[in-house]
């Protein structure tokens, strides 16, 4: 399998971006008129690039989503970065 990572454009990473250690998953957070907007980008096992753009009414609903995803167990470092990024993004609203 060709090894692909998120060679994305934000170097250095913005405070509202959280990326996994292996560079294969990245979250970009921003506030908008509806609440918190989150884009989750990842490289899947087939080498495809997948992006999901999601809307959360507030940080609580975002944290519930994170809990349900199991990220804190599977990717604890990324989870910590994501929590910090969400604080920054929510503070910008």
């Amino acid at each position, binding site marked *: 399998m*060709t090894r*692909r990572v998120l*060679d*994305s*454009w934000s*170097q250095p990473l913005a405070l509202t971006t959280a990326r996994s250690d292996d560079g294969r998953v990245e979250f970009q957070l*921003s506030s*908008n*008129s*509806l*609440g918190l*907007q*989150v884009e*989750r980008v990842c490289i*899947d096992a*087939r*080498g*495809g*690039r*997948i*992006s*999901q*753009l*999601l*809307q*959360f*009414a507030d940080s609580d*609903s975002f944290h519930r*989503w994170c809990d*349900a*995803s199991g990220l804190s167990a599977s990717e604890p470092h990324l989870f910590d970065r994501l929590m910090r990024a969400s604080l920054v993004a929510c503070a910008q609203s």
Partner: protein
Amino acid sequence: MSPAPNPDPQTADLPDPEHCLDCARDFLGRIQATNDLRRSLEFLWQATHCLGAEVALLATYLHGVESGDSFRMMLACDPQWSTEYERLGSYVCDPWLSYAMRHSEPIRSFELPMPTHAERALTASAETFGFRSVVIVPAPAGASRSRVGMLCLGSSSPHRFEGAAYPTFKLVARGVAMELHEWWLQSMAQALLARTGITERERGLLSRLAAGDSTKAIARAAGQSTAAVHSQIQRLKGKLGVPDRRQAIRIAADNGLLD
């Protein structure tokens, strides 16, 4: 602003065709006034309610290119579904996307064949997140054979997309899907241009590279030296922050710059 209240799934029919047209006209005016990607989800929610649906997803899929597949999706529904969607196989097992890749005519989910177990599992999961009845509206991207878009509109009512108003609804939904998908691609391209400072000339260079032209061939066609074109490519890679031309092409394609 919060999303407008959903129509009552048990009682609401599709909107009156006149209202639907007026709403769509207003909606198209709004998206034409901005390229601000931060408003993407706001626009998707507006389109959803304008068309009398409760939930929706908009996707754009780039496939069959050397730089790899790219699937982007935005959701106007409970975000928990995104986790389920991934768990159940993502776009590879998505029967709605599969349909949109081969057709341009909108279709209701009950009209779709569901041949595989994986596809059935994905649509069953969607049902629990408000996509009980669904209209899949393909949004072909111009002349591009590599990219397809789709708008999926859903309701928890099993018969929402039926009745006398459906033909007009289908017509309006088709227009909204095409316009919204096109707006998304253009906004992504504009955002990338603004972020990187790539010029129109460099965009043309990217297109040549994506077409497989060598440095020598590009130089010959432009009446420039190979060294000059090589230097332009180096500058382009620097702007995109990537080490090679393959990744430069991937970012450009992914963001709608080559469509």
